[in-house]
């Protein structure tokens, strides 16, 4: 870490205090005098939702500029010009390929790895996920090479789908063929990872700490004052907004912990995890935003809920489990409920994308600097289809992508072709990945040749 007493602020400057290390957003003071702000780095996030999507409410009917979005995507309507929708991308590895039942287990294991995972409860075998290939190169100088975030069920063992280990359904990122990277589910754990000294505290220890601690920002007070004295008015305002955002996250976590402490101890929610889906989603994505803003990491995977999730969505008056509903057998009432769940998920994503768009980043904003993919490992959850996977990219990857369009590729185009293109954009160039047959074209507005 770079000490603050330097005359010119380094990009990796931290506000430091006892047990705390708060990275900073890009400030004018970090740019050399009389020079333009450096181009913001490209960030990448992969957000995954389970059980497929009601596809006739997702895909546009025609290629080209986006018209009125389908019902599931309606929450993205204000952000339409910042989106790319991609059609016909396929994960052949998610298909049965002689392995029988278990599409949920396979599709999640395949999603970022591109491989046909081994059907097993104990001898798990997938492949390194493409985010980790990037992390190994781009992330090595970051505070966190990558962050793995989730919101439900961290089990790593047991049978989660027809003989497929829960390691496949409950993780997105894989460090190697056999080592998944379990997502952080608890907002407090993530907060302490981002701003603490690396030690995850037990609930009891947290309670004791809360007796004397008001905020993590209290611990970096001296450091903050010292820095502020060296900043111009614009940077001071930026810093104040940034620290306020962190404080707000902290308040929300404390509120969730207080709520949890008052409710039924038998409730199936770990301490500190908000019971409300939207609240949990907002907390986690607020922290991802901070992590991107402060350049703590450039790579995030976000397993919104585990593949095959049977979570009920009482927040929107749907007491039925998500997964059972998706096997709707074309019953309109069940399709309607799945559509509502799909739309509810996208609603939360839209709020996050809006926040990214409203967060300055160099001479642009965080959404423009990023490529945030929202997608699923199944298209039709009723029939367990692995083709035409729902794929939305928010952000232009630093202006590289021409957004506001729907690009339909030829059928069977490997999803891994998109991953190769995304790796290129992150500065990582490899020949093949998974079952790739090349790269996808047209993201930059050129001809789509599949």
């Amino acid at each position: 870490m770079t000490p603050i007493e330097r005359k010119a602020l380094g990009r990796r400057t931290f506000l430091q205090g006892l047990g705390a290390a708060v990275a900073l957003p890009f400030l004018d003071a970090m740019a050399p005098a009389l020079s333009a702000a450096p181009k913001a780095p490209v960030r990448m996030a992969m957000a995954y939702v389970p059980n497929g999507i009601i596809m006739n409410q997702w895909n546009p009917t025609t290629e080209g500029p986006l018209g009125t979005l389908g019902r599931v995507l309606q929450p993205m309507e204000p952000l339409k010009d910042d989106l790319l929708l991609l059609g016909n991308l396929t994960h052949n590895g998610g298909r049965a390929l002689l392995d029988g039942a278990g599409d949920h287990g396979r599709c999640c294991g395949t999603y970022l790895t591109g491989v046909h995972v081994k059907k097993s409860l104990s001898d798990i075998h997938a492949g390194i996920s493409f985010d980790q290939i990037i992390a190994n190169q781009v992330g090595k100088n970051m505070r966190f090479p990558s962050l793995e975030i989730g919101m439900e069920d961290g089990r790593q063992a047991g049978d989660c789908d027809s003989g497929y280990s829960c390691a496949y359904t409950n993780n997105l990122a894989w460090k190697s063929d056999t080592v998944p990277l379990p997502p952080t589910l608890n907002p407090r754990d993530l907060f302490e990872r981002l701003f603490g000294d690396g030690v995850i505290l037990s609930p009891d220890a947290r309670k004791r700490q809360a007796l004397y601690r008001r905020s993590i920002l209290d611990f970096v007070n001296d450091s903050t004052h010292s820095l502020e004295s060296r900043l111009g008015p614009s940077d001071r305002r930026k810093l104040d907004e940034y620290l306020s955002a962190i404080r707000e996250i902290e308040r929300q976590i404390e509120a969730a912990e207080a709520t949890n402490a008052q409710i039924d101890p038998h409730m199936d929610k770990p301490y500190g995890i908000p019971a409300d889906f939207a609240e949990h989603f907002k907390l986690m994505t607020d922290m991802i935003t901070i992590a991107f803003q402060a350049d703590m990491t450039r790579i995030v995977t976000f397993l919104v809920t585990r593949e095959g999730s049977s979570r009920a969505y009482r927040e929107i008056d749907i007491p039925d489990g998500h997964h059972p509903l998706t096997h709707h057998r074309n019953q309109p009432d069940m399709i309607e409920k799945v559509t509502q769940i799909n739309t509810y998920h996208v609603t939360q994503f839209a709020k996050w994308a809006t926040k990214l768009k409203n967060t300055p980043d160099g001479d642009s904003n965080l959404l423009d600097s990023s490529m945030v993919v929202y997608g699923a490992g199944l298209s039709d959850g009723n029939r367990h289809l692995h083709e035409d996977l729902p794929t939305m990219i928010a952000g232009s990857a630093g202006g590289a992508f021409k957004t506001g369009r729907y690009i339909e590729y030829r059928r069977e185009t490997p999803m891994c072709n998109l991953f190769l293109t995304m790796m290129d954009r992150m500065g990582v160039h490899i020949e093949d990945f998974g079952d790739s047959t090349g790269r996808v074209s047209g993201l930059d507005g050129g001809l789509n040749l599949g």
Partner: protein
Amino acid sequence: MQFGGGGIPPVGILFDGGFDRIGDLLALAVLFGLESKGQSRVVAISVNRPDFAAAQFCDITKHYYTPGAFGGLPIGSVDGKQQPDPVYAKLLAETGDNAAPLFKPNVTRVLDTADPATVLRNALTASQPSNSIVIASGSVASVSRLLSLIGSKPLIEGVVRHLILAAPKLPSDPAARAAAQRMFDEWPTPIYLCGDDIGEAIRFPGASIDKDFAALKNNPVAAAYRSFGDMPYDAPASPAAAALFAAHEKENLFKLSEPGKLRISASGAIELEPASDGKHRRLLVDTAQKDTVLKELTEYASLPPHPPSGRRGANANAKADPKEPQQIKKQQ
């Protein structure tokens, strides 16, 4: 392409053809006839020329023979500047009662087709060990590209019994010829050459179209046969012979040459260079079996459509004689 039943299913045939001659459609008719009898399965069809209308007609043919089937892989079709064969435009424009199209394609956009090599590769990933045969009719570009895809070579080695080249046509482009030679050299399983000589000797009788296909209303292959030449004519049937050989290899309907290695001569011809360690052979006409071959071709080609037996497509769950793959392997 996927099957959930127990046992080993009948051999899966992947057919990649130019479809600029009736022989390729006749081969499809034979293959669907064999499928209806549970003797093989059609697991992939691709067009190795940029001719979208041909791909549409392949899809029409597939749906004619397997009505009600859904799922499975799309038709493969080479993208790029179109080289349409006028026969298909004419067929697609034909109308029947009430001026309705006689042949209505389900595939209406190039986007609804797929890259041929990807279709072939994805079909092979769903194959049991040594239970697929690839037929490349005309161009060998699709199979060359298949071989070049990541992970394809070991996949082919594990699941493809052999590749059959039916009346191959090589381009004049030296780079493409070099790629074809590389494919011959690197293809990991046996290659059989079913050349033009087979087609010259075994001609599908035009009379069969009027006679054997008479009961098949609006049969797309019969309609195409009539459009590809002035009736009556007997069409060279190398691709259909390759299809029959693929499914009935153990019946010894053809003689085989001594082993060798396929070489592309300076003039662009494909020759079999004798080599005792070679994995390539040429199919030869067995005059004693010629009538049997013709009889089987006409019978299988004119079998009626069959409904799918499984939700993934025709005969997806059909069981074959478990001894069959072993018997066939012995002959290789």
